[in-house]
């Protein structure tokens, strides 16, 4: 997590004191690195104990985790490939969080985005690959965006809880996907694995040159940086944070809260929809039930671990990508069941949430001597 992650929040989190010193200026930032870092170390420690109870050597565990996630160039590519969709789906939760909304339906937006992107590609088979790819990206973002906007609209105009509605919309999205893939959009040749027709090898977006990592990683990083600028360095973002802090106050000062909610929800859904488009255009080449791989749900975890900061989403996604990349090695070398990775994710989640209570309470970081 870089220095500029926390700076804007610093003003809010740390009470201003009289004399400006190093700790005072950067204490908040240090806090934002130190506390999650300590939470992570604590979680790994507890997981080590957990693994030791199964009779495995925790040192082996840490070695294999490092080796599987970051130990070689192959491991790095493995990690970054897994991180790519998570950055985009995490933004689907992190952006609405600025407005105080808890959206957990990124999976639905991803599926609808994938379906829309596939439809666009199948309709534009005559066009040049670049045109098809652009159309897929636009369709994916529009589809995903409108999907989450539904939740935003229900909340704004009908008072429906957005957490529940976005979650339920995931199941509706999955049902729509299954219906279309097994019915109207089914490729008759896909006998035992109902799928749509393929978008065509020429229309695939391929990998970043010199690597195995698909372009989704670059899209994710751009989207995360753009979201960060939008939230912390524009009037629109400021308005969103005001509304997130106190919706009544925002209304009193004349902010168009409805518009804010719909726009932010659209952007959130658009990023998950883009993740769906990338899964189709870079990985699967068509739409089928494989797309419901849970990236949308892991994205929620990433967003919360990043404390809803769009920029922090990037390193956290890489961390979780690394955990899942090393999960295979833990199974193969230590004979641990797959569920052990879930246990580790759960422990990290708990530690990070619990560490929330520490912010602003670590005395020496406030510059008091």
């Amino acid at each position, binding site marked *: 997590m870089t220095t500029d992650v926390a700076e804007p929040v610093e003003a809010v989190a740390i009470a201003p004191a009289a004399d400006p010193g190093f700790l005072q200026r950067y204490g908040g930032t240090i806090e934002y690195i130190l506390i999650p870092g300590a939470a992570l170390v604590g979680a790994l420690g507890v997981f080590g104990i957990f693994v030791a109870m199964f009779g495995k*050597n925790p*040192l*082996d565990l840490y*070695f294999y985790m490092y*080796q*599987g996630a*970051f*130990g*070689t*160039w*192959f*491991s*790095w590519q*493995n990690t970054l*490939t*897994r991180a790519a969709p998570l950055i985009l789906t995490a933004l689907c939760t992190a952006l609405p969080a600025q407005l105080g909304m808890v959206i957990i339906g990124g999976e639905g937006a991803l599926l609808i985005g994938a379906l829309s992107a596939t439809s666009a590609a199948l309709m534009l088979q005559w066009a040049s690959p670049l045109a098809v790819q652009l159309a897929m990206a636009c369709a994916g973002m529009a589809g995903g965006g409108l999907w989450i906007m539904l939740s935003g609209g229900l909340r704004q105009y009908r008072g429906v809880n957005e957490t529940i509605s976005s979650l339920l919309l995931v199941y509706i999205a999955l049902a729509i996907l*299954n219906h279309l893939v*097994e*019915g109207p959009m089914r490729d008759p040749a896909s*006998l*035992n*694995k*109902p799928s749509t027709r393929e978008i065509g090898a020429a229309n695939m977006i391929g990998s970043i040159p010199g690597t*195995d990592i*698909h372009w989704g990683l670059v899209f994710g990083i751009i989207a995360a940086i753009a979201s960060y600028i939008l939230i912390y360095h524009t009037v629109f973002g400021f308005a969103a944070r005001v509304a997130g802090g106190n919706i009544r106050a925002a209304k009193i000062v004349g902010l168009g809260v409805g518009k804010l909610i719909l726009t932010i929800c659209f952007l959130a859904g658009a990023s998950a929809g883009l993740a769906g488009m990338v*899964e189709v255009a870079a*990985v*699967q*080449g068509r739409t*089928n*039930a*494989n*797309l419901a*791989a*849970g990236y949308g749900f892991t994205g929620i975890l990433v967003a919360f671990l990043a404390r809803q900061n769009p920029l922090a989403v990037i390193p956290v996604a890489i961390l979780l990508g690394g955990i*899942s*990349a090393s999960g*295979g*090695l833990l*199974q*193969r*070398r*230590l004979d641990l*069941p*797959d569920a052990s990775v879930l246990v580790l994710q759960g422990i990290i989640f708990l530690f990070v949430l619990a560490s929330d209570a520490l912010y602003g309470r670590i005395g020496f970081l406030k510059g008091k001597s």
Partner: protein
Amino acid sequence: MDFGRISRRHLLQGSAALTLGSALGVRSAAAADMTIGFIYVGSRDDYGYNQAHAQGAAVLKKLPGIKVVEEEKVPETDAVEKTMESMINLDGATLLFPTSFGYYNPHMVKVAAKYPKLHFEHCGGLWSDKDPKNAGSYFGYIDEAQYISGIVAGYSTKSGKLGFVAAKPIPQVLRNINAFTLGAKLANPKATTQVIFTGDWSMPVKEAEATNSLIDQGVDVLTCHVDGPKTMVENAARRGAMVCGYHVDQSPLAPKAYLTGAEWNWEALYPKFVKMIQAGESIPNFYRGGLKEEIVKCSPYGEAVSAEARKHADDIKAQLIAGTYTIFKGPIMDNKGKTVIAAGTERGQKDPELEKMDYLVEGVIGATS
């Protein structure tokens, strides 16, 4: 840090050094002539599809000079590509068994093209000339074993109502339902099979509901085609119904209610493959077989199976093994009254028409869509 410079040799040295001191040292340090990777979509103790493959892998583990690495719960996304490459790069695997249907295209095809010197064997896929030569697909005509189960079920039912809990109306599943029903009608011409589709491969809650609902309607013998038959078998036995198993022998779950079952025989096939590779022979890219080729088998009869049922079932089994019996022999009508296989037409097991099956035969209560 340039992780790219760490070669596989360094890595192996490192891991060997690290594991020497631990209990794992013996296993990792032992030189293996051949490392084989198995990848499962679910957990390998699911009493079902994945366990059947894991049992095959367990037989390979006992062969001298063979090392088996396994990874479970790998989704059908680029995660499986990375798992295959991880097994190749970090474990030195030269033969891979990605066992789930959705791993085949595009994932296994892509990795097989990237590593042309290694062997890839996929369960269930339809290898075609366009696919890499070092890739292959194998599958078994398990409908033969389902036909035998049907005969036993037809003798065992008192109500004449059989139940089938199925995942999706795709050709492989429909073929099992139809074979089971045709077998049952051999024993009891009035028998009907009521089928419920749960919509996906692993839906324990829906499978339990389907089981209960079938029994509520008077069904007294059940079978299934889902990834993990455990839910159906345990629920049906608890309700006093009898069951025919699927994928593996589930008799330990319900010793009294278990009649017989259609099982995979990967324990016989996998060592055969390994021997062929060790002898330098090439495995046919498209490998199929049934009871005769020992790719599928029937569970031993349970105590509730009558002598008459055993005799009839054994007789048909012997004819199937001898290759003198055809299951899909006209005239066969579907359950809407349309003739699907005309009188005088025999569709043998290798008939490609059967791979496209999209109907339910007369006697099945249910619809494909």
